[in-house]
C-alpha cells in the first residue's frame, strides 16, 4: 500500500493501452491479465485452448479478445497479429509470457519436444516481437503525454543460471534473455521499450510438476514466488521501465554473481542442490505433495 502511494501518478500506466498477453490461461498469465485489466488496459489474451481463456475472461471486468493459437506454428503467430489489429486497431504492449518446460533427461529427449521448448520459449517471442514492432513503435498519446510501446518478456532465472535437469529449457531462456537484451538496444532508437522479468521458482502447476517429477532443486533455492508477484513485476516494468527485473531481487544478484565464473558452477552446484533439495522437500510438505517416480535420481546427490 505504501508502494501504491509512492507510485508517481503521472507516470506510464497501461490505462487504455492495448496489451497482448501470451500464455494467458496459465498461472502467471492469468495474474498478468487480472493486473492489466484492473489497471484499465484492453486485453488480447492468447493461449492454446479457448476454454482456459474463457475461465480467465470470467474473472475480468471487461470483455477481452480471446485468441486460441499454437505458438509453435508460425502461421498462428501471423494470425495473432492480424486478429489483434483487426479487433483493437493497435498494440501498445506485448507481454511475452508463454513458456513450457518439458522434464525429461536430455539423453532421452525427442527431437520434437526439444523443438517445442525452443519454439514456444524462444522463437515465438522473437516472431511476435517482429510482427507487432511496427505497431509498438507508433506508441500512443496518453492524456497529452507521449507513451512508447513496450515489450515485456517473462524470461526465468534459467536465463542466467543453467539448470542441468532442463538443458533445452536453459538454452531457450538464455537465448530469450539475449534476444531481449539485443532488442532493447536495437529498439532504443526506434521508440520501443524492451523489458524482461526474471523470476526464480514460481509456485505454479509447472513448478509442482517439476517438484514431483524430478525437476531441478535449484528452483527451490529460495521460497517459490507467487504468480501474483511476477505479475506485479510486469506492471512495475510498465510503470517504470527497466531492462531487467529479478523476482526476488536477491536471486538475480546471486545468479549473476555465480555466472562470473561458470567454471566454478560444478563446484557450487552440489551445495546449491543440497540447499535447493531442502527447499524442495519443504515445498512438497507445505503443499501436501508426494513425489512421483524420481526417474532422474542419479543427478541428485
Amino acid at each position, binding site marked *: 500500500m505504501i508502494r501504491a502511494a509512492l507510485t508517481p501518478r503521472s507516470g506510464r500506466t497501461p490505462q487504455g493501452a492495448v496489451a497482448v498477453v501470451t500464455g494467458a490461461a496459465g498461472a502467471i498469465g492469468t495474474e498478468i491479465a487480472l493486473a492489466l485489466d484492473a489497471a484499465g488496459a484492453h486485453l488480447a489474451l492468447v493461449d492454446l485452448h479457448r476454454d482456459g481463456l474463457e475461465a480467465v475472461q470470467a474473472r475480468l471486468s471487461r470483455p477481452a479478445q480471446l485468441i486460441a493459437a499454437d505458438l509453435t506454428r508460425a502461421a498462428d503467430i501471423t494470425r495473432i497479429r*492480424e486478429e489483434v*489489429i*483487426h479487433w483493437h*486497431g*493497435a498494440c501498445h504492449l506485448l507481454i511475452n509470457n508463454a513458456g513450457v518446460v518439458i522434464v525429461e533427461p536430455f539423453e532421452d529427449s525427442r527431437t520434437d519436444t526439444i523443438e517445442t521448448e525452443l519454439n514456444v520459449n524462444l522463437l515465438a517471442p522473437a516472431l511476435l516481437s517482429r510482427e507487432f514492432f*511496427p*505497431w509498438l*513503435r*507508433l*506508441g*500512443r*498519446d496518453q492524456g497529452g503525454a507521449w507513451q512508447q510501446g513496450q515489450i515485456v518478456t517473462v524470461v526465468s532465472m534459467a536465463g542466467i543460471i543453467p539448470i542441468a535437469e532442463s538443458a533445452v529449457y536453459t538454452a531457450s531462456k538464455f537465448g530469450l534473455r539475449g534476444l531481449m537484451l539485443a532488442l532493447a538496444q536495437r529498439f532504443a532508437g*526506434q*521508440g520501443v521499450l524492451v523489458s524482461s522479468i526474471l523470476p526464480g521458482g514460481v509456485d505454479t502447476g509447472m513448478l509442482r510438476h517439476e517438484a514431483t517429477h524430478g525437476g531441478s532443486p535449484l528452483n527451490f533455492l529460495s521460497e517459490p514466488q507467487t504468480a501474483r508477484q511476477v505479475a506485479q513485476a510486469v506492471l512495475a516494468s510498465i510503470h517504470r521501465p527497466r531492462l531487467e527485473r529479478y523476482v526476488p531481487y536477491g536471486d538475480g544478484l546471486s545468479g549473476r554473481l555465480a555466472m562470473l565464473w561458470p567454471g566454478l558452477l560444478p563446484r557450487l552446484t552440489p551445495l546449491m542442490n543440497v540447499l535447493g533439495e531442502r527447499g524442495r522437500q519443504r515445498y512438497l510438505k507445505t503443499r501436501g505433495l508426494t513425489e512421483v517416480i524420481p526417474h532422474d535420481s542419479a543427478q541428485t546427490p
Partner: protein
Amino acid sequence: MNEPTYLIIGAGPCGLSLARAFTQAGLSYEQVERHTDVGGIWDIENPGTPMYRSAHFISSKTTSAFLGFPMPADYPDYPTNRQILAYLRSFARTFGLYGRIRFGVGVLDVQEMPGGWQVAFTDGQVRTYAGVICATGTNWEPQMPELPGVFGGEVRHSVTYTSPDEFRGRRVLVLGAGNSGCDIACDAARSADAAFISMRRGYHFIPKRVFGRPADTLAENGPHLPAFIERPVMQGLLRLVTGDLTKLGLPKPDHRLFESHPIVNDQLLHHLAHGDIRVKGDVARLDGPDVVFRDGTREAVDLIICATGYTMNIPYARRYFEWKSERPDLYLTMFNRSHHNLFGLGYLETDGSLYPLADWMAHLLTQYLLEQRAYPGGPQPFDTLIREDRTDLSGGAHVDSPRHALYVQRRAFLTHLRALCRRLNWPEPDEAALSVPARQAVSA
C-alpha cells in the same frame, strides 16, 4: 490479380503534386480534369475560377515551389497568377503528367464497393478503382452573407470578379478583408469612383517584404522561437514597420498576432493612407441606393462585392465525408477515418504556401498505398494512426472562427509529418529524387 489502380480527381496544383508522387513511385493511376488543361483556379479560363487579373501569389516564390522544382529565377518574389499558371504547366510537362490526364471529363458520383470505389464520369463511363483521391479544390462554392433590406444596386460574390474594368464609374463596397478582399479593394481604390471595404473585425497586416526580403522567408528560415517570445517580438517589429493602423481607420485586432491568418498586403495600407478607399464596419442592412452600417453611418453604393469566402465541398462524394463547420474532417486533412482508400488532398487552410505541403502529403499518401502491399487485405500501422492520432496541428490556440476550425499551422504540420515518418520508418520526401524529370519513353 491486376495491379491496384487509383483515380486522382482534378489537375490543379494538388492533383499534379500527387500525380508526380504516384508516377515516381510507380503506382498505377488515372487522372481526370473537367477543364481543358491543368492549373486549377490559376487558369482564369477555367469556368467558375475565383481568379482575377490582378491576383498575385500571397506566399513568396522561395517558400512556395513544389519540392525539387523551384520557380524560374526571373520570377518576381510574388509572381502573378499568369506566372503561376505557366509554372504549373511546366511542372506537368517536366514530370510527364499530361499523358495520363483525361481532360474535359468530370466526376459525377463516387460509390463505395466491396474492396474498391466505383466512379461515374460526365462522359457516361463508369469505372472501378482501388482508391480515389479528391483534389478538386476549395474555392468553387461561394459563401454569401445575409444582407437584409432592399438594394437598388448589384450584389455579387468575388468569385465572379475578374477585372478592375468592372469598377469604372461605380461606387464599390468590398465585404470582407481576407486576402482576396484586400486585393479587390485595392483594384476598386484605383478604378472605382468611390471605394469602401467593410470588415467585421480587426486584422494584423503583414507587409509583403521586410528587411528587403519576402516576409514569409523570415518565418521559414528565421529562428524558431516559442510563440510567447516570437509573438511580442514580431508584434513590436510590425508596429515599427506598419505603425498604428487604427490611424488609417482600421479596427484594432481583437486577437493576438498569429492567432488568426494575418493579411499579407501593404497596398491596402497605401491606398488607405491616400484616401482612395475607406474602412467601414459591419453592414447592418441595405436601403435602396445606400448601405447602412452597424455604427449608423450610410454610404451610397452601386456594386457590392462579397469577398466572403468559399464553402468547402466535395459534391460527388459528399456523403462519405464527415463535415465539421463545412470542412471535411480528415486525418492530416487527407485520410478518411471511416472509408478506406478515399482521400482528399488540399482541403486545408494554412499559414503559408500550399505546394510544398501538398508534396509532403502526396508523399505520405504514396507511402501508405505502397505499404498496403505489405499487409494485403489487412490494416497496416498507419491505419492505427488514422483511427487514433488526434494531434493538434493548429500550432496553438486560434480565434474561435469557423475559418480556423481545421486550421493547420505549417510548421506544426511539417514537424508532425516528420515525426510520423520516423515512427513509421518511412523515408522523408527526397528533393533530389523529386527533381528528376520523367523519362520520355514511358508515354505508353
